[in-house]
């Protein structure tokens, strides 16, 4: 038996507990699954699974509640921050987080995220920017790159007609109630690790009641980008990062110690 031989080994990486032991519906190579896993790892490491509540979006991640072993619900398209506000305000001891795509958060739901930030709601927002509307089949999102061909910008995004891509972290970081706003990416292992660290900090910010934390994660949509997964990761690096620079957009003073600790912990 293999297990007998494996018994000699230490497990150095295994599926996190907070990730339900099932297969996701995501397309092959889609980094939604990867980001889910990072969140689950963080929930495990912080030991907050028993008091976390997920608000899933409308978008490819609509079924996210099936994949986390925490309580979960599903908001109307774009309204996750409002729903999360209702949950958190009435259950302040819970850790409430939203998981939202760029159509969800950066198009229809911009008002809700801005005002949740404005009120300094104690919420954690994982914002998955894949420069398109995945679930509905690849339409233009506010974050779609200049010239990018989508099913609703078939001649490429014309910035003269519809403006340049919207930069969410830059926008939200101007709002004082958003105390931790960073942009990360999952296009390679080093950045995956940084993303995880940021997600951890974002949850810690909430645990300490400091205000809204938002981690923007550049993510792939191999299906609608019409690219194999590895090429999609490359596209994040080549095409997206120049438009959406990675970095820390706001780290409020109260949050600084947390970032130090998290870095140390890596």
């Amino acid at each position, binding site marked *: 038996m293999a297990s007998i031989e494996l018994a000699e080994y230490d497990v150095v990486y295994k599926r996190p507990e907070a990730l339900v032991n099932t297969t996701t519906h995501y397309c092959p190579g889609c980094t939604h699954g990867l980001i889910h896993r990072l969140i689950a790892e963080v929930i495990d490491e912080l030991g907050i699974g028993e008091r976390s*509540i997920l608000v899933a979006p409308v978008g490819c991640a609509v079924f996210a*509640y099936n994949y986390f072993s925490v309580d*979960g619900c*599903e*908001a*109307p398209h774009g309204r996750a921050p*409002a729903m999360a506000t*209702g949950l958190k305000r009435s259950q302040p001891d819970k850790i409430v987080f939203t998981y939202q795509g760029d159509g969800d958060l950066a198009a229809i739901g911009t008002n809700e995220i801005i005002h949740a930030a404005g009120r300094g709601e104690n919420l954690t927002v994982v914002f998955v920017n894949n420069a398109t509307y995945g679930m509905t089949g690849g339409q233009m999102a506010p974050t779609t790159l200049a010239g990018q061909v989508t099913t609703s910008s078939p001649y490429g995004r014309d910035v003269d007609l519809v403006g340049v891509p919207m930069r969410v972290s830059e926008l939200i970081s101007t709002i004082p109630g958003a105390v931790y706003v960073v942009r990360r990416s999952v296009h390679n292992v080093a950045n995956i690790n940084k993303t995880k660290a940021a997600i951890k900090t974002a949850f810690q910010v909430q645990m300490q009641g400091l205000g809204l934390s938002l981690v923007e994660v550049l993510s792939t949509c191999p299906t609608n980008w019409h690219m194999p997964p590895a090429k999609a990761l490359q596209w994040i690096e080549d095409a997206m990062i120049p438009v959406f620079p990675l970095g820390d957009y706001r780290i409020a003073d109260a949050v600084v110690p947390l970032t130090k600790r998290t870095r140390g912990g890596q």
Partner: protein
Amino acid sequence: MAKELWKGNEAIAEAALRAGVEAYFGYPITPQTELLEYMAREIPKYPGRVFLQAESELAAVNMVYGAACGGVRTMSSSSSPGISLMSEGLSYIAGTEVPAVLVDIMRGGPGLGNIQPSQADYFQMTKSLGHGDYHALVLAPSTVQEAVDLTYESFELAEKYRTVVVILADGAIGQMMEPVELPPWRETMREEQRPDWALRGAKDRPHRILTSLNLTPEGLEQTNLRLQARLATVQRNEVRWEEELTEDAELLLVAFGTMGRICKTALRAARRKGQKVGLLRPISLWPFPEQRLHELASKTQRILVVEMNAGQMLLDVQAAVQGRAPIDFYGRMGGMVPLPDEINEQIDRLMALPISQPETNQPGNGYHRHAAAAAVASHTRR
């Protein structure tokens, strides 16, 4: 408890507090705003309860949705345009089968309209509070006291049937003051009383999911069947109405809310003149007292529906009466309120008509056209 003079909006808010509402989310809009303002003033006095002014009605309804998913007693309030903005969220709440209470203090429409009392949201509230197959339980008080009592009860109803309960009133009830006897304070829910579907953290139990999504038609039909079965129970158990002098009525007035009470004045005047007039005042607009109306229709000679709109409940009356009595309609719109003298004029006119057969009650050239005509008439008359 002694009676006190309360403004409708504030009385509703106080009743909700006494009923144990834990979380209120809203947005200002006339003629409902005093309800929100009362909550802003009072809720901070009760630790553990939440008042939050949302950035919009869209946000408010989804905050309610969130709180409701936590098994928390929660509500919002608004007026017509704000309610329209809530319709997507309300449909989600219904599809997720979580309880919530909503107060609609109706005003004149369509569009921005004005802020005067109106009943123009009857269809919206009773038929289609958003897309999809569902009905909210809609309760229409006609006095401030009744508004208090129905609000107080609404939370239990919402929780019992895991549904949206609407308190449907208009600017007149929201703004007027009447003597009220307030109900006793109820305790807010303790943790162990939270419903077994509530999202409270997956501690010592499997994680719970609340969603309105079900991609398979088979699965979503199951949800709908569960919903419809629950609505059927509501239809069996929760039909409410008030009757006045229906036993010998030759003319039956049907009116709800503010219109219902105004009709009482007209009714009394008519009776003083010896006219045999009665009144059916539906209190639950959904479920509509169709059975009772159907019975009464067989006993009366004529029905007059009076509404502060172009004729909306009229359709439910039509469907319930099923040709057993001719139906007339009198309505005013845009914040105009039919006053007793106008109603008495209609009564006089109708009592003077020969008793007609149900056959006269033709649709098409019947009720709808008549509705418009009546309103025109009333308008040109004064």
